[in-house]
C-alpha cells in the first residue's frame, strides 16, 4: 500500500509540475512558430462522453495549447438480473453510477495528453440475492420471503483522485468537432460495505461480515476509467 501511495504521489507531482514545464517550452516554441501557426485563442467547448462510469457531459475550457480544464458529470443507472436455477436463487446487480469531475489536461504532444484531477464519485453498487422457490427444511416448507434476501451495497470513497492518459483533444483550436480518448485509473479508496438481510438469513448481514468483505476489497481501490469524448467548440 505504501508503494501505491508513493506511485500516486509521484504521478500527481509529475502531473502538477508538467504544465509549467510544458507551457514554458511550448511558449518558446509558439513564439518561434508564430509565423507559421495561427494565434491561440482560449476557447470553450461542450462535449458528450461515454465512460466506464457511464455517459456524461463536460464543459471544456482551454487556457493554452497545452492545458485544458474540464468540468463534467456522468450518470448511469442499470441493473442485471440472473436466475441461478441450480440453487433456485435470483441474483441482481444494480449499478447506480454517478460522478462529477474537475480535470486538467496537459498536452505533451499535439494530441497526446496526461489528465489528472478530482472526481466526486457518488457511485454505488447493489448486489442482491433472493430465493425464487420455497425450500424444505426437514418437513417444514419455507417460503421465499420467510427465507429472506440478502443485499450488499458497495460504496467507494467520494473524493477520488484520477490520473490518465489520452489521445486527441477535447477542444479543437481550428475545427468545430473534436474527439478525445482517454484511459486512466480512479483511486476510490477502500469501498465501504453495507449488508442488509431479511428473513431467516438476517444475521448474515452483520458488522463482522461487512468487515470481512471490506477487507477482501482492500486491494480493489483503483477503478479503470476509460473515456471516449466528442466535443463541439462553442467559441
Amino acid at each position, binding site marked *: 500500500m505504501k508503494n501505491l501511495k508513493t506511485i500516486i504521489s509521484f*504521478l500527481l507531482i509529475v502531473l502538477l509540475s508538467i504544465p509549467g514545464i510544458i507551457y514554458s517550452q511550448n511558449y518558446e516554441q509558439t513564439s518561434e512558430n508564430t509565423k507559421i501557426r495561427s494565434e491561440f485563442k482560449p476557447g470553450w467547448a461542450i462535449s458528450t462522453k461515454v465512460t466506464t462510469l457511464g455517459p456524461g457531459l463536460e464543459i471544456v475550457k482551454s487556457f493554452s495549447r497545452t492545458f485544458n480544464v474540464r468540468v463534467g458529470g456522468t450518470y448511469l443507472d442499470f441493473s442485471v438480473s440472473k436466475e441461478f436455477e441450480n440453487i433456485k436463487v435470483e441474483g441482481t446487480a444494480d449499478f447506480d453510477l454517478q460522478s462529477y469531475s474537475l480535470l486538467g489536461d496537459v498536452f505533451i504532444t499535439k494530441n*497526446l495528453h*496526461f489528465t489528472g484531477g478530482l472526481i466526486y464519485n457518488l457511485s454505488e453498487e447493489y448486489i442482491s440475492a433472493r430465493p425464487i422457490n420455497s425450500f424444505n427444511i*426437514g418437513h417444514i416448507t419455507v417460503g421465499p420471503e420467510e427465507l429472506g434476501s440478502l443485499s450488499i451495497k458497495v460504496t467507494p470513497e467520494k473524493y477520488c483522485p484520477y490520473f490518465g*492518459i489520452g489521445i486527441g483533444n477535447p477542444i479543437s483550436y481550428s475545427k468545430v468537432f473534436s474527439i478525445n480518448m482517454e484511459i486512466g485509473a480512479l483511486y476510490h479508496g477502500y469501498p465501504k460495505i453495507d449488508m442488509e438481510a431479511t428473513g431467516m*438469513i438476517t444475521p448474515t448481514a452483520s458488522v463482522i461480515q461487512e468487515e*470481512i468483505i471490506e477487507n477482501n476489497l482492500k486491494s480493489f481501490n*483503483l477503478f479503470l476509467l476509460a473515456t471516449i469524448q466528442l466535443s463541439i467548440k462553442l467559441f
Partner: protein
Amino acid sequence: MKKSSTLFKIASIGFLIAIILTIPSCKKLTNLTEGTKLIIDYNLIKTSFTIKFYDAATGILIGEAEDNRSVDVTIFGQNANDVLDITGTQPITFHSAEGFLALAINPDVTPSLTNPAKFTIVTHLDGYLTNSKAITVYKEGNYIYDIYLVDINNPPNGVSRISNHSGHSNNEGVVEEDIIVTTPNGMATVTIYAGTILKEGNGNPCTGTITVNLAHFSNLEYESLLAFPGGLETTVNMPDGSVDEGLFFSAGFISLDVFDENWSTADSAYIHAVNMQMFVPEETYNSSTLGGVADGDILPLWSYNLNEGTWDFELNDTINATDKGLFEVISNTWHFSYWNWDWFWGEYCPEGLEINFHSEDYTCDCYWLKATITNPYNGAYMMSSWFYACNNEPVRLLYVPAFFPVNITFTGYCNGLYTELDYYYIDNLCAADILDITLYSETIGSNVLFEISGYCPNNPNFEVRPTLGVWFRPANNWCWQYAFMYNGYADICNVILGEPYVFGVVYDGHWTEYTVTPDYDAYIYQELELTDDICTNVLGL
C-alpha cells in the same frame, strides 16, 4: 524529438502503472466473499414441547448421566402428522436423550381455540410400563410436560406389582388350572379360570407356562397417580364413537399382561371371561355424586388403547361394600389391557382463571413455574401444568377442569421460589377471577447471556442460530432449570457467577452439554456441532 521521446516514455509508464494496478484488483474481486458465512436464524418453530421422562420411583430423568437409555416415543391423534422434532425432522419414532425430548408442531398449523392442536405421546421403554400423554394446545408457545414411567422391577409408592408364573396352558391355549393372582398389597386380584383359551392378537394360541404380570396403582398415592398410564388428564373414546377430553377421578387402576412361555403376549380370552376384582379405598372421591364413595355407586370401567394412548369406555360396574368395611368392584373382561375404574369429568375450559404473580424481590423477570392441582376432598393428585409467569403479567392455566374445587400449589423447582401459602384453595378454576400470588425468592443470582452457534463440520461457511430449549443446572446437583433460546441467544436468569454450571440442549434425539463457569462478564458462547443427520437431511449441506 528527444523531448517527445522522453515524454512518450513517461506517458507509457503512467499508462502501464494504471493498467497494472487495476488488473490485480479485478482478480481479487473473485474472492469478495472469502471468509464470510451464510448465517441463518433457525426460528421456524412457533409451538414447541419439551418432554421430560422420569423414573416414577426414583424421580431421576431416564437416560441421565451414565444411563444411556432412551425412551422411544410414537405420536398418535388428530395432529400426529404435524408433530416434528424441534429441528423439523419427522422420524417414525422419536427418541429421548438424557431424559429430554424436544418436539414441535409444524408451523403450517396454527393452534387456536376453535382449532386446537391435539396429539398423544405414547412411550415405550424396555422394563417400563407403556405410558402416554394427551396434549392439547390452542395457541402458539413453548410448553413443558413431565411424564413419569413405571419401572416394572422398581415401581413407585402406591404401585404394587407381582409376576406370577404358576399357570400353564396346553397346545390349544387352554388354561389347565385356575390362575389366581393377587398384588402384594392385596388390592387387586385377577382370576383366569381353567378351560379359558388364551390367544395372541394374530390368533395363535398361548401355550406352555403362563406368566401373569399384575400391577395395581393406588388412586390416592401421589407417585402412583403421577405415573398413571395416560395421565389423569386424558382423551377417552366413548361408546357412541365420540372422543372426549377431560379428567379422571380414579378409583384405581390395574395393568394386566399375560405371556406364554415364548413371551408372546396374550391378547384375548375365550370360553371364560377373565375375572378382575379390585378394592376401592373409602377415601375415594366420586365425582359423579360430588362426595365420598358409597355402596351401589356406578363406576365406569375403561380399557387402555396401548397403541394410541387413549382410554376406551368398556362398561359401568357397581361398587359393593364388603363386610370388612371396604368397597370393591368386580368386573369380567375378554381382552387384556390396562384397566381403569374412573369417573370421567368432561367439564373443562381451555383457559383457566387469571393468576397474577408479583414480588418485590424478583430475581428474574419471568419464571417457569409448575402448578400442581390436588383434590381437597382427599388430597389426591389431579394434574400438574408448567407455565411461564412474568412479574405482574397475569397468566392462565390451560385446559383445567371447571366447576370443581381444587387446591393448587406453585413451585419454582430449583430456582428457590416459594409462595406465601403452601397451597391455594380455588372454587372453580374456570371462574372469571384473578388470583394474586406473592412470590418469594431464596436465591439471588445474576442474568447470563448464553449464545450458541451451530455448525456443520462438512461446511464451515454455514452457521445456524438455533431456537430451542436450554437446560441448565449447577454442576453439583441434578436439578435442571429451563430457559428458551431464540436465534442463538438465551437470557438465563438466577445464575451464580463464578460457580460451574452445566448447560444442555436436545434436538433430534441428541443431547449436547457444556460445563461452563459463568464469569463476571455474564456472557457464555458455545459452538454446537450439528449431527450429520441434521446437516445432510435437514439443511441439505
